C-alpha cells in the first residue's frame, strides 16, 4: 500500500484554515485553524463527531462553503504549489471536478433527479475536456464499467431514481473520477449505505487510489472505516485538529484523551465489554468556545491549566501531532 504514497511534495497542503459562519452578531467557528498535508496516493481520513467541522473543512478545500453566511476567513490552501485561495472563481471552476473532485454522503440527493446519468457524467467532460459527443459517451461507459456498474450503456440513459443506493454512489464516484483528478474528497461516502454495500464502495475507492494514484481525503465519523482505509488520520474536535498521525501509530497508541475516549466508546464485535466507556457531556457551542482547551470539561484527565490556556499542536513523536497539555 505504502508504495503508492509519494512523500516528496504534498499534493494538498493546508495551513491555518478558518471557516466561519457569520449571521448577525453571531459567529460560528466551524473550522478554526486546520493544518493538513496530503501526499500523492495517500488516503487521509478526517474523523470527528457531528459539529466537529470535518465536512466544512472538505467544502473549504473546494471553496464551496455555503454563501452568503459561510466564509473562509483565513488560511492557505496549496494545491500543487498554487494557493487556490488566490485563484479567481473562473480558475477555481476549472480545477473542480478536474483536478479536485468530491463525492457526498447521500447519493440519492447528490444526483440531479431530472437529468440522465449520461448527461451528468458527460457534462464534466464537456466542461473540462471539450471532447466530442461520441468520445464522451465512450469514456462514460468505460468509467461506469470500471466502477462496477452493470449494463453501463443502458444506465447512461436512466435517471437517478431508477438506481439503487449503492449504484448511485458508484455513479457519483465515476463522475468524480472521469477526469482522473489528483485529489478525491469523499464526505461520509458510505454513511447512508448498508454494510454490505459499504464494503463494496470502500473497496472501489481503494482501487481508484491504486489504479490512478489519486489522493483521497476521506471524511467520516466511523472509526471502523478509518481503521480500514486510512494511511494518515486527522482527529477533529470543535473545529480544531486534536491529533494527527500515521494510522498505524494512531490506533497503536492514541495520545489525545479525546481520541482515546472515542476509541473506547465504540462497541465492537471482537471484544466483550460489560459497560461501554463514554464521554460525559456534549460538544461545546461553536459560538462561544471556552478560553482553555475545548475538550477540558469533558476530559477525564483535565488539569487546572487546561481550563485556562488553550493547548497548541505539538509534534510529540515524528509525524505524530497532538493538541494537549498532558503530552509534552
Amino acid at each position, binding site marked *: 500500500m505504502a508504495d503508492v504514497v509519494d512523500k516528496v511534495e504534498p499534493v494538498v497542503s493546508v495551513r491555518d484554515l478558518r471557516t466561519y459562519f457569520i449571521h448577525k452578531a453571531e459567529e460560528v467557528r466551524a473550522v478554526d485553524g486546520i493544518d493538513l498535508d496530503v501526499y500523492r496516493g495517500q488516503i487521509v481520513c478526517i474523523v470527528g463527531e457531528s459539529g466537529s467541522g470535518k465536512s466544512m473543512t472538505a467544502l473549504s478545500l473546494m471553496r464551496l462553503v455555503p454563501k452568503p453566511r459561510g466564509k473562509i476567513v483565513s488560511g492557505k490552501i496549496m494545491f500543487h504549489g498554487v494557493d487556490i485561495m488566490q485563484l479567481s472563481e473562473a480558475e477555481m471552476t476549472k480545477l473542480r471536478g478536474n483536478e479536485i473532485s468530491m463525492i457526498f454522503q447521500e447519493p440519492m440527493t447528490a444526483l440531479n433527479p431530472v437529468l440522465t446519468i449520461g448527461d451528468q457524467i458527460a457534462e464534466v467532460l464537456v466542461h473540462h475536456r471539450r471532447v466530442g459527443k461520441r468520445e464522451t459517451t465512450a469514456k462514460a461507459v468505460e468509467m461506469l464499467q470500471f466502477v462496477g456498474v452493470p449494463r453501463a450503456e443502458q444506465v447512461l440513459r436512466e435517471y437517478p431514481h431508477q438506481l439503487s443506493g449503492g449504484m448511485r454512489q458508484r455513479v457519483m464516484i465515476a463522475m468524480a473520477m472521469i477526469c482522473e483528478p489528483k485529489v478525491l474528497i469523499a464526505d461520509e461516502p458510505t454513511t447512508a449505505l448498508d454494510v454490505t454495500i459499504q464494503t463494496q464502495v470502500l473497496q472501489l475507492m481503494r482501487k481508484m487510489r491504486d489504479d490512478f494514484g489519486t489522493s483521497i481525503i476521506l471524511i467520516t465519523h466511523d472509526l471502523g472505516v478509518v481503521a480500514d482505509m486510512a494511511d494518515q488520520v486527522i482527529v477533529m474536535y470543535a473545529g480544531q485538529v486534536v491529533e494527527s498521525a500515521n494510522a498505524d501509530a494512531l490506533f497503536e497508541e492514541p495520545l489525545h484523551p479525546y481520541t482515546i475516549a472515542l476509541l473506547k466508546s465504540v*462497541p465492537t*464485535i471482537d471484544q466483550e465489554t460489560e459497560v461501554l466507556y463514554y464521554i460525559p457531556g456534549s460538544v461545546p457551542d461553536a459560538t462561544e468556545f471556552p478560553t482553555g482547551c475545548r475538550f477540558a470539561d469533558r476530559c477525564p484527565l483535565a488539569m487546572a491549566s487546561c481550563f485556562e490556556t488553550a493547548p497548541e499542536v505539538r509534534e510529540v513523536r515524528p509525524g505524530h501531532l497532538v493538541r494537549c497539555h498532558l503530552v509534552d
Partner: protein
Amino acid sequence: MAEVLLEVEGLKKYFPIQSGLLRRTVGHVKAVDDVSFQLNYGETLGIVGESGCGKSTTGRMLMRVMEPTAGRIVFDGQDLTKLRGKQLKAVRRNFQMVFQDPYASLNPRMSIQDIISEPLVVNGIVTAKQSEPIVVQLLETVGLRARDRFRYPHEFSGGQRQRIGIARALSLHPKLIVADEAVSALDVSIQAQILNLMVSLKSEFNLSYIFISHNLAVVKHISDRIAVMYLGHIVELATKDEFYNHPLHPYSEALLSSVLTPSRKVRRERIILTGDVPNPANPPRGCPFHTRCPKVMQECRVTRPVLRDIRAGHSIACHLHA
C-alpha cells in the same frame, strides 16, 4: 426464568401495489413474510438486517400501530392481534417503544413534564398534578435533572432527547420495550451513554428488549439472542455467542465480515457480496438470498428454505445445513 413473554407466529405484512385506473392490486410488497420467534422474560432479542429487510415493520406490528396481514402476536398469553379498543388499551401499557429520531419523536409543543406524564394520565394511573414526583424520579433515573421537566424539547441535545424518550417509555413500567434504531442517529460518544443506560435500566425495571438495529456491534453489546432478517424473512436466529462465533447462514457470514472494527490489528477476511438487495415487490423465487449468495446451489433457486433448529439455540433458513 425462561418463561415466554412474547411469541410471534407466522407474522406477515403485505403492502398492496396498486396500479391502473381502477387502483387494482397488481401485487404485494412483502415487507414481512412469515416471521416467527419467541422472547423470554428478561431477554433481549436483537433484530439486525439491512434497510428494507422488514425489521422496523416487524417492530411496528408488535407495537400494534400497524395491522399485520396475517400471524399471531401472543404477549403474556394473550393474542394481541385479536384485541381491540379497551382490551387493547389495557395491555398496551405493557409494551412501549423507543424511536430512532430523537428530534421527531417528542412533541415540540409540550413540556417535558407533559410528554413524560402523558402515558400515565391517559391510562388513568395518576392525574396530571399527581404525576410530578413520578416524572421527577423518571428524569433522575435516565440521568436528567428534576428541573428539566419545565423545559421544551428544543432546548435539549439529541442524546438528552433520547433519554426523555426512554423516560416516557418507562413511565408505564412496561414489560417489553421495542427500540427501533434507538442509537443510530447519535454520535458514538453519546451512543455509548444511551446504550449503558438501557443496559442498566433492564435489570432495574425487569425489562425485556427487542433491539432493532443495522449495527452489528451495537446489537452484540446489548442482546442475548440475535435474529437476522433479509427481504422480510428471518434467515438466522441464534444466541449471541453462537451467532458471533459460528454464524452459519452465508448472509450472516457476509454481514459479519463487513463489520469494520476500529483497530488495525483485527483484519477480517472480507466476503464481498455482489449486487444489491432485490426489490421486495419482486423477490426472487426460492431462497431470497440466492441472487447474491456465494454458496448458491441449484436447490436454492427453486425452494425457499424454512427456518429450523440446527442445534440448541441456533436455527437457520438455509439449504446448506439441511
